[in-house]
């Protein structure tokens, strides 16, 4: 009976999602596929941004961290909120102001040169494929857990459905379905918290706060300072302007909406972390103390809800995964078409649309295949963060802020940043106690400065 109900809820959810995706229409030109014709209103930019960044890590992961270390991770998560607000105030509007800009690579092409665009495009596509593999792996875990399916078929179902609507609808379908998925999880998880507080803690503030302080003291005592510094750096920089976020900045109707969308998404992330951490703290009075971090949310819902609650949780978790996955697939496909294919081939609008669609399918297949080798959700995400920040951020941010950025500086910064991050992550992981993301970022900044200086000397000569 319980399995039947779970299946019914999932089928109803897929039908509703299909209805929403069909209403979003198939993209008819590349401008629509890549930028939704630059017509997104504030609520959709905000909802889509929030739906994209709330993945398994910011839901299941944060509830587990709240359970073990109380409000410690709220403090760390606020670095992410600050990053979103700063990007909204200073970077997103500048990005939106660029004409004929479809991707971050395009921004590099306009500010530096075509070579920089291609390098940024390759890094963007690689990162989107990597992140997609992590999301596919998480989606597979959720479905296998509920339906006892083999892992590969669960991954295939999640990736297949997501790739289907993203291939045909492009960014607009991704944003519209993100909004639908955001509505599902942004309502259901906070309602779960309110129910747990009302019926299991009997609305008692003292029980909640005593559990919170005990867990937070425990968390502070067991986490070394250097680890906290590394986590703050990863949250502050690791996801900054990754391709799906940049696409939403570019697709906003106006620069004001671009700015507002990021600022609101930043504020919402702080609220969201508070809710997730509080769910974890509440769970301490309800589920066994030795529950594994990734199973806290699952066991909490099993304990406080009837059987149907488990199905609802499944819907929420599938929403969380699919809304991140569709954005990554679309952003990777657009970057491939615009930054890697277009510089070498003069594509018509129709041909570019077809290349974008084909790229969506290929990245989805790579993600499904890669899902098998993802070590763990958090490790996979941290690896992507460590490479993205040093590889792209210094060149992107300086390029958008200064008047005449030098192409050599862009190439050197991206190249050295990528090599340093990969070397420190894979070849010499124990070389230094300082987190790899910080060392690689420093190397990228030094390389940028050297490239800028050489470029300036050459220009003067």
């Amino acid at each position, binding site marked *: 009976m319980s399995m039947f109900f779970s299946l019914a809820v999932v089928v109803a959810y897929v039908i509703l999602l299909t209805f929403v995706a069909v209403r979003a229409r198939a993209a008819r030109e590349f401008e629509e596929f890549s930028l939704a014709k630059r017509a997104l209103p504030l609520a959709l930019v905000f909802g889509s941004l929030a739906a994209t960044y709330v993945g398994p890590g910011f839901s299941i992961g944060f509830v587990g961290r709240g359970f073990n270390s109380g409000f410690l991770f709220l403090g760390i998560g606020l670095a992410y909120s600050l990053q979103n607000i700063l990007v909204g105030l200073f970077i997103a509007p500048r990005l939106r102001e660029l004409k004929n800009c479809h991707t971050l690579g395009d921004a590099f092409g306009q500010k530096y040169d075509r070579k920089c665009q291609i390098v940024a495009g390759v890094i963007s596509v690689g990162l989107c494929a990597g992140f997609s593999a992590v999301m596919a792996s998480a989606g597979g875990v959720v479905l296998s857990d509920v339906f006892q399916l083999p892992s590969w078929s669960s991954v295939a179902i999640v990736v297949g459905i997501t790739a289907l609507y993203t291939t045909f609808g492009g960014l607009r379908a991704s944003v519209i379905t993100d*909004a639908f998925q955001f509505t599902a999880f942004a*309502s259901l998880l906070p309602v779960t918290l309110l129910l747990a507080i009302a019926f299991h803690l009997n609305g008692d503030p003292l029980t909640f706060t005593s559990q919170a302080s005990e867990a937070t003291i425990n968390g502070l005592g067991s986490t070394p300072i250097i680890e906290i510094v590394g986590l703050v750096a990863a949250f502050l920089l690791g996801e900054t302007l990754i391709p799906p976020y940049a696409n939403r900045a570019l697709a906003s109707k106006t620069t004001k909406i671009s700015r507002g969308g990021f600022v609101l998404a930043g504020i919402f992330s702080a609220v969201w972390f508070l809710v997730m951490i509080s769910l974890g703290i509440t769970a301490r009075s309800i589920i066994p103390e030795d529950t594994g971090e990734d199973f806290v949310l699952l066991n909490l819902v099993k304990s406080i809800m009837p059987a149907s609650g488990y199905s609802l949780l499944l819907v929420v978790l599938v929403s969380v995964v699919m809304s991140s996955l569709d954005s990554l697939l679309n952003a990777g496909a657009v970057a491939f078409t615009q930054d890697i294919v277009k510089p070498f081939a003069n594509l018509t609008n129709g041909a570019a649309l077809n290349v974008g669609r084909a790229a969506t399918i290929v990245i989805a297949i790579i993600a499904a295949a890669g899902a098998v080798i993802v070590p763990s959700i958090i490790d996979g995400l941290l690896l992507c963060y460590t490479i993205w920040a040093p590889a792209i951020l210094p060149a992107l941010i300086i390029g958008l802020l200064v008047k005449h950025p030098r192409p050599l500086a862009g190439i050197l910064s991206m190249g050295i940043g990528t090599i340093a991050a990969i070397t420190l992550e894979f070849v010499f992981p124990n070389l230094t106690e300082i987190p790899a993301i910080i060392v690689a970022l420093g190397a990228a900044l030094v390389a940028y400065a050297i490239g800028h200086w050489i470029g300036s000397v050459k220009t003067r000569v």
Partner: protein
Amino acid sequence: MELFIFVIVIIGALIAIASGIWVAFALGSAISNDGKKKIPSNTKET
């Protein structure tokens, strides 16, 4: 202090739910506007 933290958590949950409802309204509006756009322009004029 206990009560303050508790109230902040409750307000946070309500803000998250309100955000979901706001985006749901925008989604409804976007979908219905799309439906209107499907009407061919020559039909509109006649």
